[in-house]
């Protein structure tokens, strides 16, 4: 008790001496309320150059298979911002489920970001392995969203369902990508480039809006022709080696930052 009051007295003196001298300016990292700002991420779902419209439009992948989409959901987690000097800010409890059929989920607002100039945006498509095996979760990770495998514990990171006349079997497309254990780990972390390398300026009065184009074709069209997915041979995956192919494809280019409103 006595120690504590001595400490309080001393720190009081320190504050007092500061206010008399000019050390306030030099020590602004000690400022009890550092400047923070916000940033929005907006996810715009497209298929090539077309907008994604569920159950209506027919699209064609690189393998030449026509298809429609009835459901498109994915997790974005562990969002990070990095400054040129390597300083990193990570959103706490960073788990977001984005759904094509729920517009409100397509905008994620990051809050309480220390003001600064950030040169890199990083996030995970999917959910880190720790949360895959943790106990019952809430929010975006609530198993009631239908993005959790009950018989083989783990989240479905990306879920696309639809139809294609060329798909084997009944013509259904079921791409449930997930799995966090080697050799079929599908957790992918990406840092899509900022347009023209222009950094993100975050200030109390400066909240950038980052518009991402999320291209559904990124799941099926790979970086090389060999990695393209042809529905005649693959139209159903629920984890495992085939899911790894899809994850490799989408890590390579499903997410692109289209433009940033600097505000």
């Amino acid at each position, binding site marked *: 008790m006595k120690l504590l009051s001595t400490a309080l007295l001393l720190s009081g003196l320190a504050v007092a001496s500061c206010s008399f001298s000019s050390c306030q300016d030099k020590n602004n990292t000690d400022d009890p309320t550092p400047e923070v700002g916000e940033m929005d991420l907006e996810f715009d779902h497209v298929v090539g150059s077309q907008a994604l419209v569920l159950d209506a439009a027919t699209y064609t992948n690189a393998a030449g298979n026509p298809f429609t989409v009835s459901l498109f959901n994915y997790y974005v987690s562990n969002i990070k911002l990095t400054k040129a000097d390597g300083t990193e800010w990570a959103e706490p409890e960073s788990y977001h489920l984005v759904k094509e059929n729920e517009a409100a989920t397509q905008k994620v607002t990051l809050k309480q970001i220390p003001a600064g100039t950030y040169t890199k945006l990083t996030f995970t498509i999917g959910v880190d392995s720790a949360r895959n095996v943790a106990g*019952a979760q*809430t929010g975006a990770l*609530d198993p*009631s969203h239908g993005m959790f495998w*009950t*018989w*083989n514990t783990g989240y479905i990171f990306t879920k696309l369902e639809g139809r294609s006349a060329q798909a084997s079997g009944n013509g259904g497309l079921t791409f449930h990508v997930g799995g966090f254990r080697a050799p079929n780990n599908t957790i992918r972390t990406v840092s899509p480039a900022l347009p023209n390398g222009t950094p993100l300026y975050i200030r109390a009065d400066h909240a950038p809006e980052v518009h991402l184009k999320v291209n559904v074709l990124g799941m099926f069209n790979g970086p090389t022709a060999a990695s393209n997915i042809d529905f005649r041979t693959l139209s159903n995956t629920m984890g495992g080696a085939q899911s790894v192919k899809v994850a490799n494809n989408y890590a390579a280019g499903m997410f692109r930052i289209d433009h940033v409103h600097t505000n």
Partner: protein
Amino acid sequence: MNLRLLQRRARLSWGLAGLLVTACGPADEAARPAETVPGSTLPANFPPPVYVLDQNPPDRAAFELGRQLFYDPRLSRDGSVSCGSCHQQFAAFAHADHPVSHGVASRLGTRNAPALQNLRWSRSLLWDGGVANLEVFPLAPLTNPVEMDETLDRVLAKLNADAAYPRRFAQVYGAGPITSQQLLRALAQFTASLTSANSRYDRHARGEASGPWSTAEQRGLTVFRASCAGCHATDLFTDESFRNNGLDATFAADSGRAHITGAARDRGKFKVPSLRNVARTAPYMHDGRFTTLPQVLAHYDHGVVASPTLDPLLRQPDGRRGLPLTAPQQADLLAFLQTLTDESFLSNPQLAAPR
């Protein structure tokens, strides 16, 4: 309360005996002093738990809620099947006499319902280890079409519309609609409480009074340590690994662990089950193929089938398969396996369906 015990206590102190007599009247349960929640103490002869106490600290109201849910058939689609239908206390929460499970509309599953005991120590659940955490476990039977065939949303809607549940959940988790997390954590209060550590073997192992320990039991223990404990290890009687104990040559019906890992080297491997209360958990093996323990011992002695993933412990240096067990050794093993029966667990009124 047992009369002899009462008389002994009475010799110790008349006053105390008087108290006990009143406490053990018809109002037995209500008058009992606040008992700890089952499973809140960790047995001294067990390794450290996986689902640690701090993760979901045992709490009377939460435990009672979990117990209510475990025995409530409304959790199934048509209100016909509860967790307790397939997991019966007298069978150490296995499904007595059912080789494979029977779910709603008598739909048949493909696997035998295992005993539920000492789940706090399990690194993975199911015969193939597919579920990684005790808390999320109930999602598997709840949504399995051949078990309870219900959706999480509909279960929550039923609970939220119930006359009693919302108040009971609010008492434990605070006001607001019942969430999936609350449902799962309440159920885990009950499943994690199922600690069986009071068999005659346990008391013997801990050096407590265990009643007479016969020479047959002692010889059986010696055979067990030599032949079985390589897999049925520690006082949990499982090392939690996945092994092929030679039941089949091919695994088209059920590939076991390979179902989860997709790896050929895991084909035909299943989680080593605990042997606690094994005298009460018949039928045996992942598909319930054996109905008696002598059949199981006969399997290990001369029924082990070759396959690429057969466990090395079941291959003898001379090339023979299995674990050679003489008739007297089998009799001793049977005597020993009986000592793993934990009557206080099988009949603990706190674990029975609430009245």
